[in-house]
């Protein structure tokens, strides 16, 4: 659940900071004396809204995907125990009701993000106030934000957990009792006739097809890295160094957490396959190739989409926020930053995957045969 915790913390941190600032800015509205002040005010309000909508919205959707992924994974991993409970007479709703605990990670993550935002707020306000272009804005506590950004998401995600768990547990008892396979089982007759591929290529394709969520997470990790790191480099010129550092940190945390989450799940869910392959004589290198390397193209694709996303977003933001402002900053695609970010992501991705590949290499082939006698 660390993934949900971190994503929620990042989302609420950003949203609390900007929404609190936007709410506090309302008090200086009557004090705006010039047209430049009016425009700057509008620009700041718009920046806050866009940052919250994009960051908050994007991370909210990610949390939904992550939560559903965790619950499905939990049910897959505990199929037999849950099947026994159902067989004993517990209803799906009774079992799913216990899934509200998944909402706790949201509560803790949101709480942390909210607390961190309030911790950094004096510094954030001081930076915003230091150019004295607008009347000084002071920090005020807005209970509505605590409700909207901590209590409401925790409650909503607890309800979502129960609802999604109920839906997933709706299958017949025997299906739960029989199957220990985590993932969507394919059906025969749905395969298109194609050329015959070597076994390792077939396995790689099958792994990617069965767990599309993991493909999404790999791509999302690269997307976060590509978008946020490049955006942070541009932020220094467009906004402030503090915004740049914040974006950089959030981007890195999201990318690393998602990458670790995806890689851990890939290796864990394929441990039996890897062990059988090892017993049959497939080498560590071949197992690694079949299980891990299939995600690489999706990661690079995610990076490219992230690059395009940050470019379009900043271009639009600059043209909207600074429309008509004299001496407004200009935004151009930064090729050196792109290349450095690309290289950094390549190194991070390959290092993490190498670490997991070593893990595959250390897997005991005896694992498939139980503990023996």
């Amino acid at each position, binding site marked *: 659940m660390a993934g949900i915790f971190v994503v929620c913390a990042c989302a609420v941190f950003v949203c609390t900071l900007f929404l609190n600032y936007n709410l506090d800015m309302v008090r200086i509205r009557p004090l705006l004396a010039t047209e430049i002040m009016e425009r700057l005010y509008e620009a700041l309000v718009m920046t806050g809204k866009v940052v919250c909508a994009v960051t908050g919205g994007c991370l909210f959707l990610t949390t939904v995907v992550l939560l559903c992924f965790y619950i499905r994974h939990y049910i897959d991993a505990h199929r037999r125990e849950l099947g026994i409970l159902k067989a004993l007479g517990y209803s799906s709703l009774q079992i799913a009701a216990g899934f509200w605990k998944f909402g706790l990670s949201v509560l803790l993550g949101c709480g942390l993000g909210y607390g961190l935002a309030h911790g950094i707020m004096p510094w954030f306000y001081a930076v915003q106030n230091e150019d004295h272009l607008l009347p000084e804005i002071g920090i005020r506590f807005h209970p509505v934000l605590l409700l909207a950004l901590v209590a409401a998401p925790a409650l909503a995600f607890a309800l979502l957990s129960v609802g999604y768990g109920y839906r997933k547990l709706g299958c017949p008892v025997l299906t739960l009792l029989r*199957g220990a*396979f985590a*993932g969507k*089982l*394919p*059906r*025969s*007759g749905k*395969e298109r006739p194609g050329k015959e591929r*070597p*076994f*390792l290529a*077939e*396995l790689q394709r*099958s*792994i990617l*097809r*069965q767990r599309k969520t993991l493909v999404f997470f790999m791509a999302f990790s690269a997307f976060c890295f590509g978008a946020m790191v490049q955006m942070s480099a541009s932020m220094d010129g467009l906004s402030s160094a503090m915004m740049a550092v914040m974006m950089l940190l959030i981007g890195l945390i999201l990318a690393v957490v998602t990458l670790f989450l995806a890689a851990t799940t890939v290796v864990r869910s394929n441990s*039996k*396959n890897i062990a*059988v*392959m*090892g*017993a*049959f*004589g*497939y*080498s*560590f290198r071949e197992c690694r190739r079949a299980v891990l390397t299939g995600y690489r193209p999706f990661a690079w694709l995610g990076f490219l989409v992230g690059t395009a996303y940050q470019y379009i977003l900043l271009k639009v933001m600059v043209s909207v926020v600074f429309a008509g402002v004299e001496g407004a900053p200009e935004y151009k695609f930064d090729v050196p930053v792109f290349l450095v970010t690309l290289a950094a992501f390549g190194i991070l991705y390959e290092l993490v995957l190498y670490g997991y590949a070593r893990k595959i290499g250390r897997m005991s*082939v*005896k694992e*498939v*045969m*139980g*503990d*023996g*006698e």
Partner: protein
Amino acid sequence: MIRIEKIQKSYGEGGSSFPVLRGVSLEIPKGDFLVLLGASGSGKTTLLNVISGLERPDGGSVRYGSEELGHLSDAELTRFRRDHIGFIFQQYYLLPGLTVEKNVKMGADLSGNKEYRKIIEAVGLMGKEKKYPHELSGGEQQRVSVARALAKKPEVLFLDEPTGALDEETGRQVLDYIDRLQKEGGFTIVMVTHNANIADMAHRVVRLNSGRIVETYQNKTPKGAYEIGW
């Protein structure tokens, strides 16, 4: 010839360690059909794991001809299993996302065997090549596992309770396939079972108890899968 000498193996560490194999020695000639018979906890599966190179013993040696397994690195041991050994497990361990044909290809690709479809036919699964494991019965899944193991043309086939999860009818069927294919292929079989009736099919039976060999005997006239009791 496989020569096993004074194999020792314990699990756990320090004071809580308990011996599972206590100096087991054994010779398995090429083409033999050997059954390791014993009750649960007798050490038969651990012995199979050690002979097949899945586990390293704490003491003693396992030799295949002049090759001593203890001298091989992990990578070399993997290579050794790839070139010489096949496995059939009680729980089949088929790859759930791959069809029958592709599961069998897992073994076939290791030996460059292009004629693996003949083995699918030999185990009576023609027409089910495009099915996925979860669409097959237990007996059919075990036959896929047999085909997968044989498609790599092993010199030695290790079977760990291959009929343990099957009913009598399908169990006999699977054993019959294995028996017939061994007679055709001439490979060595080492099978672990707790069922003394199944041991009647073997050329030779080694009975284990508490990590020691307590009896070894030859079956002068090994029985077929449909002749043994159950």
